[in-house]
């Protein structure tokens, strides 16, 4: 019963490795958003303006609600191809 949080590329350099957020702590709030997840993990680190967010591998914005069991990812603009 937890939220998986992943960081990729320069976002991992900034925040650190992937982690699991305890859902019990999280559920003290009535609603938890992707922004909240960032704040739990990043503490006082400012979020770069161009960060991208995915919940369960779909792109979302920071206001998106996150539920127990979800996978939330933060990463910089993609540069493949």
């Amino acid at each position, binding site marked *: 019963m937890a939220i998986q949080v*992943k960081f*990729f*590329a*320069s976002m991992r*350099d900034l925040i650190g490795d992937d982690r699991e957020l305890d859902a019990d702590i999280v559920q003290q709030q009535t609603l938890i958003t992707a922004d909240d997840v960032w704040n739990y993990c990043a503490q006082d680190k400012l979020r770069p303006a161009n960060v991208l967010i*995915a919940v369960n*591998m779909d*792109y979302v914005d920071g206001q998106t609600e996150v539920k127990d069991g979800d996978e939330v*990812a933060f*990463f*910089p*603009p*993609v*540069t*493949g*191809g």
Partner: protein
Amino acid sequence: MSVIILAQPFDPWQTLAEYQQKMPHLDGKYGATAVFLGTMRDFNEGNNVSQMFLEHYSGMTEKHLEKICTQATEDYALLETLVIHRVGEINPNDPIVLVAVWSSHRKEAFEACREIMEDLKSRAPFWKKEQLNSGEDRWVEKNTKGY
């Protein structure tokens, strides 16, 4: 339709030859094949690059590439599509990405191939880290413009 994430080098032309041999049901049906191949250069933004590391978000990458190919197949009535993308350590002159589409007519093939590449560039979660000749390394921050 195939989407392949590869951790080792590949030969794009041999791969295409083999892929086409596996689609005999399309013999005589396609008149147009458009292919894009992206290859690692040994320079970028004024610096010499000695090696590159390509990171991806396993699962999300495949999901979005498949979505992109499905959309293009619908929009352009494609008969077949192949996307291959490298991850891991890449050396100059190594193929990075291959996009190939097969359709009846050339207009659709040209447009679909380019659109898949642009969608891949803007939506598929890959990140390049360049190792410079100077010893430094750096994340590539954005892609060059495609249009």
